[in-house]
């Protein structure tokens, strides 16, 4: 009971509220930017007029039918990836443990490529396929961290993930070579994008995301206890094995859903918790709360950039997130924060 009150105070402490509000405000700005800007001829002023009810029918259509769905999908994707990264990093005590870097997204991507090869189309891919791939990838990662010595070696884990990713990418390339017709669809899909994705996919993945969020709500406290060390966690009445299992499921649910929605986006799960931790410190619950506005802001911001830099075409979102994320990776290395956490 005392423990619980203490934790509540932590969440509500003063130093934590301003960054949360600032991140929320920033997110609103990005959402506005996303609705106002696109690769097409509908300008920000047209959109504002349309929102006031005085614009052209074209502008209203572009905003409600094209920009709004992708904005929503980017928001959900960003939140799911950010949270998944945060809990995976907390559990493995490795600030580089990012689902994309560790091969979870690539596992998901490989399964989807297989499904396309076997006759599915980008629009008929069920969320289940991506979930399955993510689960397989995630289970591999968690199993790897359990290998003696590896859990304490962030670099080896990341390198193993990078190797797994390149292996899966090579296999995906093989699939593309074997079927030229499927190649275009697969190539489009594996670069990651939120453009033109229908909201029906969102409805298909929403249950999984909600279960994932609920699990996070349940797991936040045990995770914080685990951060004190496994013995401390056991002392506080938690079961580390059980928690690890649940976290594996949670990460798979979130990453699988995000991948089903937008394709594999690497580095998001690295950048979001990295920014969040800069404000929250090591407390996982604060970090998780901050990830809720920061994750969507990062993905949506990247999407706005992807629309603007190549107009009238669009840059794949996955390329933009890599360009944003890789320097953050370098910054983490440079800061020498690696062994901590």
């Amino acid at each position, binding site marked *: 009971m005392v423990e619980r009150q203490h934790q509540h105070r932590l969440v509500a402490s003063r130093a934590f509220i301003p960054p949360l509000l600032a991140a929320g405000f920033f997110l609103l700005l990005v959402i506005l930017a996303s609705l106002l800007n696109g690769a097409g001829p509908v300008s920000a002023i047209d959109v504002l007029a349309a929102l006031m009810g005085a614009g052209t029918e074209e502008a209203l259509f572009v905003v409600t039918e094209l920009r709004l769905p992708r904005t929503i999908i980017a928001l959900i994707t960003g939140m799911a990836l950010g949270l998944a990264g945060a809990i995976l990093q907390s559990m493995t005590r490795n600030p580089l443990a990012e689902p994309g870097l560790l091969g979870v997204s690539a596992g998901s991507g490989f399964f989807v490529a297989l499904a396309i090869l076997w006759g599915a189309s980008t629009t008929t891919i069920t969320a289940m396929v991506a979930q399955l791939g993510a689960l397989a990838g995630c289970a591999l990662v968690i199993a790897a961290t359990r290998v003696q010595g590896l859990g304490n070696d962030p670099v080896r884990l990341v390198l193993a993930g990078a190797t797994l990713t390149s292996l899966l990418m090579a296999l995906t390339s093989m699939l593309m070579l074997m079927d030229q017709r499927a190649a275009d669809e697969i190539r489009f899909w594996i670069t990651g994008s939120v453009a033109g994705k229908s909201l029906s996919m969102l409805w298909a993945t929403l249950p999984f995301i909600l279960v994932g969020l609920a699990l996070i709500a349940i797991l936040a406290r045990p995770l914080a206890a685990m951060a004190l060390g496994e013995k401390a966690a056991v002392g506080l009445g938690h079961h580390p094995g059980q928690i690890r299992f649940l976290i594996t499921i949670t990460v798979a649910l979130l990453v699988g859903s995000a991948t089903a929605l937008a394709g594999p986006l690497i580095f998001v799960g690295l950048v979001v918790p990295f920014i969040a931790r800069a404000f929250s410190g090591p407390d996982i619950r604060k970090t998780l709360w901050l990830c809720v506005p920061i994750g969507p802001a990062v993905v949506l911001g990247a999407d706005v950039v992807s629309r603007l830099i190549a107009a*009238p075409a669009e840059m794949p979102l996955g390329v933009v997130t890599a360009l944003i994320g890789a320097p953050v990776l370098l910054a983490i290395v440079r800061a020498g924060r690696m062994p901590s956490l």
Partner: protein
Amino acid sequence: MKRCAKAPKKNLRNSITALVLSVIGPGTLQADPRSVDTAYGPVPVYSQPERVVTLYEGALDTTLAVQANAVGAVITRGGSDVADYIKARAGDIPIVGAPAETNIEAVIAARPDLILAAPRTSEQQYQLLSRIAPVIVSDAPLFQPDSWEQQTRLFAKALGREDAAEQVIARVESRIAEVADLVQARIPEAQRDASLVRWMPQGPLVMSAGLFSASILQAVGFQIDNNNLVKEGRPHSEPLSLENLSRMDQTWVFLATLNEDGDKALTAARQSPAFSRLNAVENDRLITVNGQLWTSASGPLAVLAILDQIETAITARQL
């Protein structure tokens, strides 16, 4: 260096010629070589070649149209065999590579006595192929309304079947006139604007007005408008984002898909609200066509096939 390279060239060709001779028997080989003007200068060709390898879809089309014997072809773009429209005529023709990547060993294995190559074949590739058999690379300017006709005449000259080629071209021209009459009769002049688009998963590509099939549409009376989306000398625009879909909208939209069944891709496209808003879609003026034929092929047989499809599309619709 140059001389060293030349010496085995003759030998290799002679040995292949000898192989061919052993198959077809000595015939009209005594005739003097004819000189064919190509992008890489005049090329001597003996009599009527009997084993032709075509490294370009337009060349396969012409070869079959003039009833010469093709013994090797490249796959169509995005497929794994020759294009569907020509499959029945081509039969089980051996595949010797993709448009961008020729398997030279497969060309050798086909034992050709003439190679018809793609326009823009690189000098390096040309030199390599010339060691196997005479190589014809068209020097006709690309993206012109009569590019295919010039190429057909050139290939036919190399094949020694110019008369057959003239007959086919005459047939094509009369068909063009027929379809042009139909267009004139059924579509008011103000409604003949059209665009040709290739549907890709990452977005539609608006094709150049100089493209082969676009020039046929123009020949029968449509006005192709690509809204300045296609840069000079490029075959198509960059993929349009969904927000810019309206820029490909005209009264008529000819939508090509490389997928085996264009309907599936179209069904997917129709789910996108941006797509169903197009005027051409709302007015049932969207015509789905086979991308292998419309955006990859070339040659007289392809023109005839395309004309048939235009005719069917117009007659099937309430105008």
